[in-house]
C-alpha cells in the first residue's frame, strides 16, 4: 500500500500519517505539533525551483518514481555493524539502522547524568522533557522536509545531559541505512545539554551497500542551555544512489558555545539545512563545512544564523571541490535582528571547479536590522592557482601530485577546525582518498 505514485505523494503521505499518528511517540501536545506539521507540509508540498530556497535544487525529480514509506527493517540483522566502527577513535559508539537504535551493538554510557536512548523510551521515561522540546525549535521553519520529519518521525536518538554533566568521551552516532527502492524514511534526534553541560558528538552516515537506493530525511534538534558547550561534527559518506536531506537546528541560550562541522562526500543528491538561533546574549558559534563532489553528485548547503540577541558572535567557513558533472550550492544567510547590537558575524565560502561540466551556485546573504554590528561575507570561486602549481613543480613534484597537494591543503582549512584529534585524522584520510 505504501509505494506511492508521484502525483499524489503529498496526499498519500498525509493518509499514512493519519493511520500512524496514534503509534508515534509523544504525548498530546506532541501529537498536536505533529498534526500542525503535516498540515504545513501538505500546504507546502515538495519544493520546486520556484521556491527561492530551492532555486538551485529541484526536488521534483527525486520523487518521480514514487516513494516507499514501508519499513524495510528485515535486513537490519544482516548489517555488520563492526565494519562501521572506527576503532582508533575512543568514543561511545552508538549504532542506528534506519534510525532504529541497535542497543545490542552500542556502547553503554555509565553516567547517571547522561541519558542516551531512542525516542520511544524518551517519550515514556522523560515525557515532560520530550513533550516540551520535540519539534519546538523547527515548528516555525518553513521547510517541507523539516515539517514532514516532525510529523512522521518515530525513530532517532534522544540525548539528554543534566546536572553539569560533561561526557568524558565523544558520543559517536553511526547511522546506517539499509533501505532500497526509494525507501523514504525520517530520523529525528533530540539533543539537550542543560546548563553548564558539555558534550562532543560525532555523527556519520553510511549506506549498507554500494548501491542501495533510499531517501533519508533526517533532522537534529539541539538545545544548548546557559553556558553549555556542544561540539557537533557530521560526516555524510553514503553511496552514490543515496538521497540525503538533513536539517540541523540548534538553539543557543546565553553564554553557550556551539561548534559544528559538516563534511559531505557521498550521496547522489544532498541537502543540508543548518539553522542556528541565538536565543541569549554572548553566544558563540562556528559553522564549518567541506564538500568534495564528483560524478553527477549534487549538494546544497543552506545555513542560517539568526542573531536575536546582542553580543553574539558567529563564524562560517564553507569550502567545496567540484569535479566531473557535479553541482554545488552554498546559500548562507546572516540575519541580525533589531536588538542584536554588537554582533560580530563572518562568513566565507570558497569553491574550486575542476571540470568544465561542474557548476557552483553561491548565494551569501546579509539581512541586518541593527546598526552597531560588524558583519561581512566573502565568496570566491576559481581554480587551482597556477603560481602555486608552478612553485611546487619547480620543486620537483609531478603535476598530478602538486594538484593533489594543493587541493588537500585547500580542504584542510576546514578539517583543522575539528577539535577531536583522532576524528580529525580519520577525516584527513578520507579526504585524501576522495581526492585520488
Amino acid at each position, binding site marked *: 500500500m505504501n509505494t506511492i505514485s508521484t502525483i499524489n505523494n503529498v496526499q498519500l503521505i498525509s493518509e499514512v500519517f493519519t493511520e500512524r499518528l496514534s503509534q508515534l511517540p509523544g504525548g498530546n501536545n506532541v501529537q498536536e505539533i505533529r498534526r500542525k506539521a503535516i498540515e504545513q507540509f501538505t500546504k507546502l508540498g515538495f519544493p520546486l525551483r520556484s521556491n*527561492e530556497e530551492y532555486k*538551485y535544487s529541484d526536488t521534483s525529480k527525486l520523487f518521480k518514481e514514487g516513494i516507499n514509506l514501508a519499513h524495510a527493517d528485515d535486513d537490519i540483522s544482516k548489517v555488520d555493524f563492526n565494519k562501521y566502527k572506527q576503532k582508533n577513535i575512543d568514543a561511545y559508539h552508538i549504532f542506528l539502522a534506519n534510525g532504529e537504535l541497535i542497543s545490542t551493538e552500542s556502547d553503554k554510557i555509565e553516567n547517571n547524568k547522561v541519558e542516551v536512548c531512542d525516542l520511544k523510551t524518551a517519550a515514556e521515561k522523560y515525557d515532560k522533557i520530550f513533550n516540551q522540546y520535540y519539534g519546538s525549535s523547527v515548528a516555525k521553519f518553513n521547510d517541507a522536509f523539516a515539517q514532514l520529519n516532525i510529523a512522521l518521525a518515530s525513530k532517532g536518538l534522544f540525548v539528554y545531559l543534566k546536572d553539569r554533566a560533561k561526557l568524558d568521551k565523544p558520543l559517536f552516532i553511526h547511522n546506517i541505512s539499509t533501505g532500497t527502492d526509494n525507501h523514504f524514511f525520517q530520523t529525528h534526534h533530540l539533543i539537550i545539554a542543560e546548563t553548564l553541560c558539555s558534550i562532543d558528538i560525532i555523527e556519520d552516515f553510511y549506506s549498507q551497500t554500494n548501491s542501495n537506493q533510499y531517501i533519508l530525511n533526517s533532522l537534529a534538534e539541539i538545545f544548548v542551555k546557559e553556558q553549555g558547550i556542544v561540539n557537533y561534527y557530521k560526516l555524510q559518506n553514503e553511496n552514490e544512489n543515496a538521497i540525503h536531506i538533513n536539517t540541523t537546528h540548534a538553539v543557543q541560550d546565553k553564554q553557550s558555545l556551539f561548534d559544528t562541522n559538516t563534511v559531505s562526500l557521498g550521496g547522489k543528491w544532498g541537502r543540508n539545512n543548518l539553522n542556528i538561533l541565538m536565543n541569549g546574549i554572548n553566544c558563540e558559534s562556528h559553522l564549518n563545512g567541506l564538500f568534495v563532489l564528483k560524478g553527477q553528485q549534487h549538494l546544497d548547503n543552506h545555513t542560517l544564523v539568526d542573531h536575536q540577541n546582542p553580543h553574539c558572535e558567529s563564524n562560517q567557513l564553507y569550502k567545496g571541490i567540484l569535479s566531473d558533472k557535479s553541482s554545488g550550492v552554498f546559500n548562507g544567510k546572516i540575519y541580525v535582528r*533589531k536588538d542584536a*547590537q554588537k554582533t560580530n558575524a563572518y562568513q566565507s565560502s570558497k569553491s574550486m*571547479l*575542476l*571540470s*568544465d*561540466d*561542474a*557548476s*557552483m*551556485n*553561491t*548565494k*551569501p*546573504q*546579509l*539581512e*541586518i*536590522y*541593527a*546598526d*552597531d*554590528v*560588524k*558583519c*561581512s*561575507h*566573502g*565568496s*570566491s*570561486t*576559481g*581554480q587551482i592557482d597556477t603560481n602555486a602549481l608552478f612553485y611546487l613543480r619547480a620543486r620537483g613534484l609531478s603535476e598530478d601530485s602538486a594538484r593533489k597537494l594543493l587541493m588537500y591543503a585547500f580542504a584542510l582549512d576546514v578539517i583543522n577546525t575539528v577539535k577531536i584529534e583522532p576524528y580529525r585524522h580519520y577525516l584527513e584520510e578520507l579526504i585524501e582518498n576522495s581526492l585520488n
Partner: protein
Amino acid sequence: MSDILEEITSSEYKYGFTSNIEMETAPKGLSEDIIRFISQKKNEPDWMLEFRLQAFRKWQTMEEPKHWAHLNYPKIDFQDIIYYAAPKPKKKLNSLDEVDPELLKTFEKLGISLEEQKRLSGVESTIAVDAVIDSVSVKTTFKEVLAEKGIIFCSFSEAVHEHPELVKKYMGSVVPYTDNYYAALNSAVFTDGSFCYIPKGVRCPMELSTYFRINTSGTGQFERTLIIADEGGYASYLEGCTAPSRDENQLHAAVVEIIVHENAEIKYSTVQNWYPGDKDGKGGVYNFVTKRGICFGDNSKLSWTQVETGSAITWKYPSVILKGNNSVGEFYSVAVTNNYQQADTGTKMIHLGSNTRSTIVSKGISAGFSNNSYRGLVRIGKGAKNARNFSQCDSLLMGDKCGAHTFPYIEIKDKSAIVEHEATTSKIGEDQLFYCKQRGLDTEKAVALIVNGYCKEVLNKLPMEFAVEAQKLLAVSLEGSVG
C-alpha cells in the same frame, strides 16, 4: 545627536514644486483603447501599435512580481493611473521662443537652463539635453551640432518616424516585452524617451543627457530609452529625474536598452532623485525600472554608474550581457535610503564571451526607518573562458531602525572563471569619527567627510557635472545622521 537626526529627516525635498503648465491627458485606466489613443496621439506607424498591443496582451497574462524583492508596498491599482499626459499645445518646437515660458521656468528651477545651453551651443564639451516632462519630450538641445558628426540624438517618438529601421531593429532586442511585468507594461504604454545612435568610429564630443520630470498629478511615467553605439563609437550619457511632492504614490516604469558593438563604449550615469515621500513615508515615486545593455561585439564596454537617493521604492537592476569576447561590464552604485524609503537594487553581469570582465562596486547607506538591499547576479555561462568578476558591496547603517541587506547570486558553470565577492555591513567607526572631531570638525562635517570618502570610489566614476550634484545630494540626505 537626536536633534541632528531630526534636522536631517525633516529636510525638505527641494524639487517638490509643481508647474502650472497646461496639460493634455488621457483618461485614467488601461485598456487596448487607451493604447490605441496613445499611439494615435503620437501618430505612430502600425508596426509600433502592433508592438504595444502584443506587449499589453502579454502583460495581462503576467502576475505582479511581489514575492522575491525585499520590498513592502500596497497593491498598485493600474486602472487608477493616467497613462498619457503632454504639455499643451503640442506642436513641433523649432526654437526656444516657441516653448511655453512656464516650462522654461520649470527647467530653470531644476537647474537646467535650456537657454543657457542654447547660448553655449558653439562651445564643445557641454551637455546636450533631452528634456522629458510627463509623457513627452519637450526639447532636445544641440541636435544640429551632433548631426554634423552623424550622431542621432532625439526623442523616441521622433526616432520612430525618422529612423524606423533602427528602432525596429533594436527595440526589444535587449529587453523583450516578455521580460518582466513592468517591462511588458512599459512596452505597451511607453510615451516617450530618448533615442541615441552613435555611428561607426565616432566619439561623441559632448555628454548626452536626458532630464525626466513627472509633473501632472495621477500620472505614471513610462519612458523608453534606446542607445546604440556602432563599431568603435563612444558616448557618455547622463540621466536625471525629479518629481513634485504629492501625497499619492506615482508610478515610474522605464525601460533602458543599450547595444554596444565591436570596440565601442557606452558610459551611462544616473542621478535618480524622484520624490521619496515625506518623513512619514507618505507619497513618493515607485521606481520600477528595467535597464539592460548588451556588449554585443568584441572588446566592447558598458559602464553603469548610479546615485540613487530618491523614490519611495526602488526596484532596479542595471545589467550587462557580456556576449562579445574581451568585453567589459561595470557597475558602480551609491544607494541612499532615509525615512521610510525602500530600495532593492543591484546588477546582473551575464558572462557569455571569452575573457570577459566585470566589476561591481555597490555602496548602500540606510538611515531612518528605511530598508536598503543589494541584489545582484553574476553568472558565468558554460564556455565563457577566463571570465573574471570582482564584486564589492558595502553597507553603512545610520540608526537602529533601518536595515541593510545583501543578496548576491553567484552562478558559475566554467572552471576557468575567477569570481570574488565581498560584502561588509557596519556603522561609521567611532574611531573615525573621533579622529575627525579631535581635529576640530563637528559631527556633521565629520560624517559628511566619512560618507563622501566611503562613496568616493563610485562618485569618481561620474562625469564632472554630475559628481558635484551627487555630492551635494549625499550631503543633504545624510549629514550627521549617525547616532
